[in-house]
């Protein structure tokens, strides 16, 4: 029993220590990876030891933040997310040393590792925080460290821009969260979470502020703008940690406060439900129109986070109308999707990192033909994509199935017709999102891995070193196991559900989902087909070229041309346009060169965030004009201040 607080402390203290050490001494990748692995194992033990019980650690008096004592709490809810953190950390640790070799001089070792340790430590801190002050400290450490990690490739202008964008988003989120915490503190006169709940009307403003903060961090529409910039710029292990775990930490926070804290504010729940649906659709719509592999994955994260918050809001909604079973199904779906997305998105980011490692590019227009040169990575990417597309029997399907179940159930159990119609409509949206996800990942795989290599770089790509393959293999098998074995693993979630004040369903909802049977029969059928029908080595010949002779690689579909039909349908939203440039002496009849450049515009950025930033810059500029350099003017300010102070001072105060 005495070991438990020990691992709790270690999971926060070890990374802090490592961060400082690696800042002072120039670290080497292998040693740091081992340290990260150790951290992952500690997290695993934290998850293990707090899976069924709550462990509380009150720090000694000298350890405090301001006036507030440090307090760590490990409970089943945090254990669940700790498990995710541990899994991804361990895989990233295995993956990192070899991967980072190819970034040699582009990153600063000290800063990378120092920030990485601060980042994972911050995440552990958020998960284990027992009161609001510890929470916000860990939250900020996590955010700032991850912003630094986005800046890893610091010579690139893009990394800089991404880091600043991200920092803005995350700091604004923190501001909202701080306001929420302060409101709650005044309401309950206590920083400890255990004293807080949101069932009372007076805590609704705080709930709204907190919710805004969390959804900014999680990347829900319309606050997702930072995400597609930040995730791709970071090195792949960081992207997978950010996308796989960090956004889940925001989800964890929402769970911690609103599900455990029993949020009863129905308007807020409606708003989150709507935003989550929009975000799922918006995310995948933009994902399919990307031509950069990691950016595509980042947008797909927006989609998945939308699904997660859909489940979260539905669960709150159901609980507010007293449908406990439904709430449980939605909560289960959402928790499973958190975990599933954490696994498969990490896998995808790691595979994308392998592509970057071998083909030195993440730009889909420069890739192609990797499946023959890197068959293992391709297989992992296909598996990860299938999980993301919710293809049974992978884990993505299980969680999405729960979400569908909860929506379907709410379509016949919620009290009013309007509520039911909304949920049924959400099923429609979800299915469209699912189909788009299939299209999106088919495109990503098709353009990046299949067909012919578009450049010599991707033509000369080699399979990645075994350690990187091993990391992917671990995640891939986790995706598979948590999918096929879902019904066996579900009972392990009952402590989390109980802790989240949810009922634990007695009947097995999964009974109508024979995933194991499906997997077995699929495997049998596949082996039968390969053994009986496709056993002969095929005759190799070139692709059909209409008799024109060897096909140029340019005749293959590009990322943009694949997505064009869908982009065209959504022209009003995407402002999709084509710039066609035909050149040649007689360009009408004998064009020598034709270039087509499609473009999409993110309306949020051009219509809302852009002008807002511009306005702020203007405001600052007009302030700067006050400081014009003339001493006479400055003296005049003194006089004006005097007059105002006297007038206000003697007249009012």
């Amino acid at each position: 029993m005495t070991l438990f607080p020990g691992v709790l402390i270690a999971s926060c203290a070890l990374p802090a220590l490592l961060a400082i050490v690696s800042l002072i001494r120039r670290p080497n990748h292998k040693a740091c990876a081992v340290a990260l692995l150790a951290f992952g194992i500690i997290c695993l033990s934290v998850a293990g030891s707090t899976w069924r019980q709550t462990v509380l650690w009150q720090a000694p008096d000298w350890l405090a933040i301001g006036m507030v004592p440090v307090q760590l709490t490990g409970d089943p809810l945090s254990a669940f997310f700790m498990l995710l953190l541990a899994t991804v950390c361990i895989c990233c640790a295995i993956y990192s040393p070899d991967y980072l070799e190819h970034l040699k001089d582009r990153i600063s070792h000290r800063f990378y590792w120092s920030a990485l340790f601060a980042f994972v430590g911050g995440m552990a801190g958020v998960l284990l925080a027992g009161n609001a002050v510890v929470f916000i400290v860990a939250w900020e450490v996590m955010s700032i460290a991850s912003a630094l990690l986005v800046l890893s490739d610091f010579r690139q202008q893009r990394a800089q821009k991404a880091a600043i964008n991200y920092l803005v988003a995350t700091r604004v989120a923190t501001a909202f969260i701080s306001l929420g915490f302060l409101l709650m503190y005044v309401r309950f006169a206590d920083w400890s979470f255990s004293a807080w709940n949101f069932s009372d009307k007076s805590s609704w403003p705080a709930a709204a502020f907190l919710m805004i903060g969390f959804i900014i961090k999680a990347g829900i529409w319309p606050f997702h703008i930072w995400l597609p910039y930040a995730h791709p710029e970071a090195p792949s292990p960081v992207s997978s940690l950010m996308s796989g775990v960090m956004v889940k930490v925001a989800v964890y926070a929402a769970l911690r406060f609103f599900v455990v804290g029993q949020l009863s504010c129905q308007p807020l729940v409606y708003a989150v439900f709507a935003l989550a649906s929009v975000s799922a659709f918006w995310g995948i719509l933009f994902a399919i129109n990307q031509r950069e592999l990691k950016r595509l994955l980042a947008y797909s994260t927006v989609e998945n986070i939308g699904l997660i918050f859909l489940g979260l809001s539905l669960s709150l909604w159901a609980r507010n109308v007293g449908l406990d079973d439904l709430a449980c199904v939605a909560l289960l779906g959402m928790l499973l999707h958190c975990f599933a997305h954490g696994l498969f998105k990490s896998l995808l980011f790691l595979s994308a990192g392998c592509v970057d490692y071998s083909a030195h590019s993440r730009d889909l227009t420069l890739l192609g033909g990797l499946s023959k040169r890197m068959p293992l990575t391709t297989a992992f990417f296909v598996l990860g994509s299938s999980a993301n597309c919710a293809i049974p029997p992978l884990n993505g399907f299980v969680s999405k199935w729960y979400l569908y179940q909860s929506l379907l159930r709410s379509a016949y159990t919620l009290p009013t017709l309007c509520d039911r119609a909304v949920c049924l409509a959400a099923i429609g949206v979800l299915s469209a999102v699912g189909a788009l996800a299939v299209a999106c990942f088919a495109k990503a795989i098709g353009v990046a891995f299949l067909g012919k290599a578009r450049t010599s770089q991707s033509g000369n790509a080699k399979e990645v070193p075994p350690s990187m393959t091993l990391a992917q293999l671990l995640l891939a098998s986790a995706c598979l196991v948590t999918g096929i074995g879902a019904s066996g693993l579900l009972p392990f979630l009952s402590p989390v559900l109980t802790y989240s004040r949810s009922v634990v369903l007695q009947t097995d909802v999964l009974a109508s989902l024979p995933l194991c049977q499906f997997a077995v029969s699929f495997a049998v059928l596949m082996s039968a087909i390969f053994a009986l029908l496709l056993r002969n080595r095929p005759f190799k010949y070139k692709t059909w070229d209409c008799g024109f002779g060897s096909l140029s690689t340019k005749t293959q579909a590009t990322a943009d041309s694949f997505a064009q039909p869908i982009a065209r349908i959504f022209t009003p939203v995407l402002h999709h346009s084509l710039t066609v440039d035909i050149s040649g002496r007689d360009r009408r009849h004998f064009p020598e060169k034709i270039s087509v450049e499609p473009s999409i515009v993110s309306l949020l950025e051009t219509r809302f965030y852009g002008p807002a930033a511009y306005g702020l810059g203007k405001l600052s500029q007009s302030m700067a004009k006050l400081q014009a350099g003339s001493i006479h003017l400055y003296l005049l300010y003194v006089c004006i201040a005097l007059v105002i102070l006297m007038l206000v001072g003697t007249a009012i105060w």
Partner: protein
Amino acid sequence: MTLSPLEMVALSIALTAILMVGSTHLRLNIWMFAGQTALLAGLTALYSWQRQDLHLFLVAMALFVLKAIAVPKFLLFIIQQVHVQRDSGTVIPTPIAMHLSIGFLGISYILASQLPIPHANGSGWPSSTAAISLVCTGLLLMLIRRIALSQIIGFLIMENGIYVFGLTQTTGMPLLIEMGVLLDVLAGVMIAGLLAFRIKKNFEHIDVTMLAELKE
């Protein structure tokens, strides 16, 4: 409405300041400042006689020696060194500025009568009017003059105004503090003068409106 001699002196001090606004001639300004401070020293001496207060007399002496003799001397020395005769222009024309400072005198009267000071002990409104007017005029001078030296003079006038206020509206400021203030002002003027000297050396002029490169 009768004015006591003390009040007359105080008001005449204020008048000298107003006259200074009217002239851009530096040497004249410095002489007028010297005269003003001498009057101030006289006023202090009168008060010391009236209140039978020896230490006030010491202050009067110090004031006379340091502020009415040493400071003008120093300023004249600077003028000689930097070869400047007149202010290189004002932000608003001098006559208007002078009228403005007369306007400030009026405002000072209003403000002074608003002051919640019981006028029992002979320290009536004229003196506080003079004090406030001096402060305003000093500020005005600093605001409209372009040359570093004029700004120093403006600051000195302001300082005088505050001193007049302290002298006439309160009694018995501790000697040590009076002396300390005087010394501080003196040191400030010295440093400012030296800086003005440097400005001339670096910029070939002592026009402070040209010192506007540091901005935003």
